[in-house]
């Protein structure tokens, strides 16, 4: 993180969103909205007096709702850039009796707090785009009534467990029960919550959970003397270098693996009863746990539909971005110059993500190694004489490669202007959709002209 922050060739833009992407490979023009931080980035020294004094507490997204932050905040101590933002939907200055609370502005020694700051919309040019939008967790609270619909505070997600283990997290690295802050003696882990569940969740395997659950079990046994860790699993999938050894290590440390999906969790006294079957023994089991950790499915990061549409990448049935070929072109998309890295393409762990990020970087570097690139000639062309300018081809083009242009035309007795379709050779991918839409036969796809296709038809039909 620090390396990225300090690299002279990297410019970091946080609290910013992509609004529009125009152009094509080598020549993208991107509209970016820099959201108003309400803090002057250049003036702020990151001293922290503002958020220390801010009177408004808000549940912390970064700490997965296990702790609170202020309305002016940096998500965590090592944040980059180390400049707070004001969350305007919760800040008293913006929500109540407009303008009254000015605590942060008053305490800021650098005079960096700026309530008047506006969103900035900027346009920048790029030769390539890498999508690295990541993942979110499956909202298990909406689907799994048998696990309590989220009403038991001591049933948490793996990511919440990570925050607890993190030294800078809400508990300073201690594993405790959210309900009473007691150290749990028995922790049950449930894998595949939302994964491999066609009915309530997703059909796919989320791929990283087997390993991080093995790690979590290790952390419980390591940090809590005399503790017990039970892992309910359907299959243990650890096909990576040093992965199975890692899982075996947790087993040797004492993690009890039970093969079976949990049917139900219910409270009894201050325990949580976890009802499963040990399918290897063929016997029902009930574990009285103090804490239950769910390995919830990875799903595409919220807002995936919007960003996919904006940039122009295809998505699969689950909303992950579609690679150009699952085996041979895993980091490219169907849009030239747009590449994929990480979990936005499919569930992945960190080693795989880093590897794929490297692959995307290599593709970008290979593109950037030339000042010019040749384009495939099998693209659409418009016969302007036949084109009526109806514009039907414009919306059907999935690559936004067609626009209407005005041409001058000589007609008997003078000149006239009219509109005709025009194909951008940088954007056109030769899919042929415009050919089908064109009523006058003005659009043809080079290499697949009507003449050529009909010759094929004639051979087999005549």
């Amino acid at each position, binding site marked *: *993180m620090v390396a990225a922050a300090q*690299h002279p*060739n*990297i410019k*970091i*833009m*946080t*609290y*910013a*969103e*992509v609004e529009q992407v125009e152009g*094509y490979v*080598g020549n993208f023009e*991107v509209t970016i909205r820099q959201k108003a931080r309400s803090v002057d980035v250049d003036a702020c020294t990151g001293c922290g007096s503002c958020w220390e004094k801010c009177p408004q507490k808000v549940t912390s997204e970064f700490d997965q709702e296990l702790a609170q932050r202020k309305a002016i*905040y*940096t*998500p965590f101590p090592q944040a*980059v850039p180390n400049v*707070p933002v004001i969350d305007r939907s919760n800040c008293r200055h913006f929500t109540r009796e407009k303008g009254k609370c000015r605590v942060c502005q008053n305490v800021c020694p650098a005079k960096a707090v700026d309530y008047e700051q506006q969103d900035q919309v900027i346009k920048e040019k*790029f*030769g390539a*785009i*890498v999508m*690295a*939008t*990541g993942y979110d967790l499956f909202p298990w609270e909406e689907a799994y009534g048998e696990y309590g619909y989220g009403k038991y505070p001591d049933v948490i997600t793996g*990511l919440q467990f*990570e925050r607890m*283990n993190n030294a800078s997290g809400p508990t300073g690295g201690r594993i405790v029960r959210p309900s009473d802050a007691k150290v749990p003696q028995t922790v049950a882990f449930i894998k595949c919550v939302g994964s491999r569940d066609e009915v309530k969740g997703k059909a796919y395997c989320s791929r990283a959970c087997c*390993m991080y659950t093995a*790690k979590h079990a290790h*952390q419980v046994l390591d940090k809590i003397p005399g503790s017990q860790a039970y892992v309910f699993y359907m299959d243990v999938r650890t096909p*990576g*270098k040093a992965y199975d050894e*890692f899982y075996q290590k947790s087993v040797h440390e004492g993690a009890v693996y039970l093969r079976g999906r949990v049917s139900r969790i219910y409270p009894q006294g201050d325990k949580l009863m976890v009802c499963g079957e040990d399918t290897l023994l063929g016997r029902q089991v009930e574990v009285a746990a103090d804490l239950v950790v769910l390995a919830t499915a990875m799903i595409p990061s919220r807002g995936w539909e919007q*960003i996919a549409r904006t*940039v122009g990448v295809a998505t699969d049935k689950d909303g992950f971005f579609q690679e150009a070929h699952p085996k041979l072109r895993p980091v490219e998309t169907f849009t030239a110059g747009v590449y994929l*890295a*990480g*979990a936005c393409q499919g569930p992945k762990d*960190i080693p795989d*993500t880093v590897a*794929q990020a*490297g692959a*995307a*970087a290599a593709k*970008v*570097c290979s593109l*950037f190694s*030339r*000042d*010019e690139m*040749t*384009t495939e000639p099998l693209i659409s062309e418009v016969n302007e004489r036949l084109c009526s300018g109806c514009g039907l081809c414009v919306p059907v083009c999935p690559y936004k490669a067609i626009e209407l242009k005005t041409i001058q035309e000589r007609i008997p007795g003078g000149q006239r202007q009219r509109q005709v379709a025009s194909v951008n050779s940088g954007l056109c991918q030769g899919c042929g959709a415009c050919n089908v839409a064109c009523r006058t036969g003005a659009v043809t796809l080079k*290499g697949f002209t009507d*003449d*050529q296709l009909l*010759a094929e038809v*004639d*051979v087999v039909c005549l």
Partner: protein
Amino acid sequence: MRRVGVFICHCGTNIAANVDVKRVVEAVKDYPEVAFATDYQFMCSLPGQDLIKSAIAEHHLDRVVVASCTPRLHEPTFRKAVADGGLNPYLFEMANIREQCAWVHAGDKERATAKAIDLVRMAVAKVKKHAPLTPSSIPVRHRLLVIGAGIAGMQTALDVADAGYEVVLLDREPTIGGKMVMLDKTFPTLDCSA
């Protein structure tokens, strides 16, 4: 009057086990304007490509059809061979007799072969109408936008930046780091994540 060369690939046994390759050659050999037709075990191999190049010279071919696998796999290979043989690479057409015949009609060699013959005839008919095409070129701006500054975005940004290119690393959150910085130790090495 065109002079079309037709090359039928066995793809080892991938095609040959379910399509009577020899019969396909026989069927198209006397097809109008076909100047040369042959089969070969692996058309995509170097000797296979050489076969195309030498046939272009020897039989004065001006169009080439290869019947083999999906164009997604080897169209670029054969276009290059055709270009090396001295023709415009777009005076070439491919018939997919592996996926569309041998594989989907496995076990019915008779009909798979009949369909392969049809597909090759169609390719020949089409290639005769082909015109030479030339690629154009567009400028490339050496600047990268990375959307999302988690582990994937940061790693890509660093790699590309190290290569000397300018990178904008963008995130909708107030900080970079993504989910990665929420984690504690990471497997399998158990080192810290930040």
